[in-house]
């Protein structure tokens, strides 16, 4: 890609693509050419499961301002949840 600015985070989660949910194992974050956002470069996040092939992907493409707002909002929500004593990261049931 033209900027080559890309990082990967190993994560645990679920993503929905079409009708189906799938296990998300990686978040690929890049600042590079988007596919749909009308910008030369965008903050792209692909929630993927590499083991399941390229099609296991939930994509978002954000403006810089939107990306910063998203980061702040996630931090704010996590801080509030922590303050409220409700943070819980143990899976409650077996993976589907």
């Amino acid at each position: 890609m033209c900027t080559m600015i890309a990082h990967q985070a190993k994560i645990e989660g679920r993503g929905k693509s079409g009708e189906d949910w799938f296990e998300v194992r990686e978040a690929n974050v890049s600042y590079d050419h988007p596919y749909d956002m009308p910008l030369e470069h965008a903050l792209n996040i692909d929630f993927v499961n590499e083991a399941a092939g390229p099609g296991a992907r939930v994509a978002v493409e954000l403006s810089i301002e939107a990306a910063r707002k998203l980061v702040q909002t996630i931090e704010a929500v996590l801080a509030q949840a922590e303050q409220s004593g409700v943070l819980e990261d143990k899976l409650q049931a077996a993976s589907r």
Partner: protein
Amino acid sequence: MYQTNQYEGMIAETVSMQGHKGDTINAYVARPLGGGPHPGMVVIHHAPGWDEWYRECTRRFAHHGYVAISPNLYFRDGHGTPEDVGAKVRAGGGIPDEQVLGDLDGANKLLRSLPYLNGKVGVFGTCSGGRHGFLAACRLKNFDALVECWGGRVVQAKEELTPKQPVAPIDYTKDLPCPMIGLFGNDDKSPSPEQVNTHEAELKKQGKNYEFHRYDGAGHGFFYYDRPAYRQEQAVDGWKKLFAFCEKNLR
């Protein structure tokens, strides 16, 4: 120029070819039916992937009388929609230069093996494909003409080099054996106008046969009619200039 009473036909299809280290990859080939011999063109897809625009671009070269081949440089990264595969490659920081060179060499050799080729093969690429085109022309030394459209990262600072891109293409300028045409938008950030100037200065210094065209009011990817970056006037002029260049150097 096409005449209205002229016969015209084309075949376009996916084929298999031998790429880097003898790997089998797929490629899209389009060629005029009948006539010949025809010049060849290796069409290098851009960073977003081996997509519909590149299918159409390959057919466009065939429409203009070229045997065109566009190898799938992302073949080894799995299959799916061009976007999904392209996103995977994007996340991995692109593909290794050596692998790209092997695949482009394979495409060149496939064209040269065809009985209806006129013995000349050019190389065309946009975005990362422009960079790969410049690299291929300099390193493989078996292309007869180079069309580089807004090749990003031809000029690379030391800190931008990676194991996949260990050498900045500009460092190979002295080895460029063929004429080249370069098309650039003055609003582009990759390559920036300053980088285009550096690119040109090196070509001039090495006494190479080149022509650069810079367009005001255009940024990165101004040929892409499916993106907001499309600039009709600049794109039409760019295609006209590059086909004139190809006719002169590949017929």
